[in-house]
């Protein structure tokens, strides 16, 4: 498998060097793997820190900046970061107003962020945590690690980040983050497997004529495999899977997210189908975002995330944001 890399061992560091070179508004500690807003610690503002395995870019490093995250901690590819990174990030961004950790629900992320929270608290930093678990493909039972955190992470980071930027205290930023997660559901499909640099090839097999319905952002399996479907059929399946679990009374934010190797042309065609289904199900759409935001390396496919919003959440969604991966209103 050809990849645009030097060697597998340095892909994360190389990407961080590139992020630093391209975005002078960020302070990038390549050695310790921490990406921080250059103007941190921002006075009188709760700080948001997220992180997770690399390979999902622009999540999370691409969402560091005004109106979103204060710092991000990238781990190795598909491997959660270590506590030292989050402790370092917390020390860099905290100004005494406290820090919110945004954690995707994977065993490794949860354990490492928990340890980091304890260590940061030992250093006198007030830490709150919000767990993102929006993937309806996984049944939320004691027989699994629980629902995975996927597309809703973007909604949580953007909306809670806007609340923090407005000066909301930690309890309120945390409550908003929890509310956004509770109002969000996602469903993803894979048309091809992803390939990690370390493996140099696909991490799972997916026959040419089939797709994986309910795939996770590390290529984890979902509900079933079927013979390849049309964009229209996939939208019906994905949106209904989400609406089976989230019956919105309010309008929704829609994220039509590419997994990494699916062209915008296809994503917009898929967005049209998603809107069609939502119209048929009488769900009003407040805003739509289409693009590659929560990716899975070079996987082909897409996910749909819906987030039910009231006026308050919608206003925070519309608030200005200035990051490498998401930018509007300023």
């Amino acid at each position, binding site marked *: 498998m050809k990849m645009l890399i030097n060697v597998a061992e340095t892909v994360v560091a190389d990407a961080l060097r590139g992020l630093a070179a391209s975005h002078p508004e960020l302070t990038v500690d390549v050695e310790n793997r921490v990406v921080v807003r250059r103007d941190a610690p921002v006075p009188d503002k709760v700080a948001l820190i997220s992180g997770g395995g690399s390979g999902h870019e622009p999540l999370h490093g691409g969402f560091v900046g005004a109106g979103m995250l204060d710092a991000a901690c990238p781990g190795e590819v598909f491997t959660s970061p270590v506590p030292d990174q989050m402790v370092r990030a917390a020390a860099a961004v905290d100004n005494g107003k406290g820090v919110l950790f945004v954690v995707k629900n994977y065993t490794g992320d949860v*354990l490492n962020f928990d340890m980091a929270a304890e260590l940061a608290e030992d250093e006198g930093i007030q830490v709150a945590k919000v767990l993102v678990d929006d993937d309806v493909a996984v049944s939320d039972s004691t027989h699994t*690690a629980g629902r995975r955190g996927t597309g809703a992470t973007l909604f949580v980071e953007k909306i809670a980040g806007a609340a923090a930027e407005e000066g909301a205290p930690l309890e309120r930023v945390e409550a908003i983050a929890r509310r956004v997660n509770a109002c969000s559901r996602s469903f993803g499909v894979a048309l091809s497997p992803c390939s990690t640099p370390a493996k140099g090839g696909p991490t799972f097999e997916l026959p040419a004529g089939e797709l994986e319905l309910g795939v996770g952002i590390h290529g984890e399996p979902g509900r079933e495999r079927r013979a390849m479907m049309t964009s229209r059929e996939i939208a019906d399946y994905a949106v209904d899977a989400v609406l089976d679990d989230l019956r919105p009374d309010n309008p929704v934010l829609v994220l039509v997210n590419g997994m990494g190797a699916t062209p915008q042309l296809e994503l917009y065609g898929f967005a049209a189908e998603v809107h069609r289904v939502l119209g048929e199900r009488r769900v009003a759409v407040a805003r739509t975002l289409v693009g590659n935001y929560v990716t899975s390396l070079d996987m082909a496919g897409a996910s749909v995330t819906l987030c039910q919003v009231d006026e308050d959440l919608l206003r925070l969604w519309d608030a200005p944001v200035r990051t490498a991966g998401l930018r509007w209103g300023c």
Partner: protein
Amino acid sequence: MSSSESAVEHALDTSFFQRWLTAAAESVQREAARLTELDSAIGDADHGTNMQRGFAAVTEALEKEPPGSPGAALILAGRQLISKVGGASGPLYGTLLRRAGKALGDAAEVTPQQLADALRAGVDAVAQLGGAAPGDKTMLDALFPAVEALGGDTASFTAAGEAADKGALATVPMLARKGRASYLGERSVGHQDPGATSSALIVAALAEAVR
């Protein structure tokens, strides 16, 4: 043999713990590709790489800042694993060794029974942190039988290694209930758990450290 004679004969000093951790590091290094291969079947194909990185840091730290007691050696190793491995394995293995190290206190020598008790405390801490139980297809399926087999003499180390190995093999027909493999549901059946496999390597290294 009286228990005091046995204690003298089988006293485990700091160098024993250094030999154990070094042997574990070599074993992880040797088996890294197999661990990654097992992980690619039911996980995300990085367990070998991550464990290799962590144990390389353990070896380096043991050389750079030689620990003064068995407990200190385990705490040092645990801290390195937490700082270097990432994923769930880092905090879980780190907790195993740190908790065991704390249980040993700052004694200059410990008996096999004290090591057995300390490792049991470590394994209990792992079960609590990960929220898993035996039968969930995790590292505990190798670790629990291993601490059951550990006893008052160093001969039990060999038995513990065999029990851990058997425990790891027994994960093949299990349905994963924790960690990333749990997303596979029925599809996790038929594969050996990578975490149980690396646990077995670490336990087996105990016998190698006996002189």
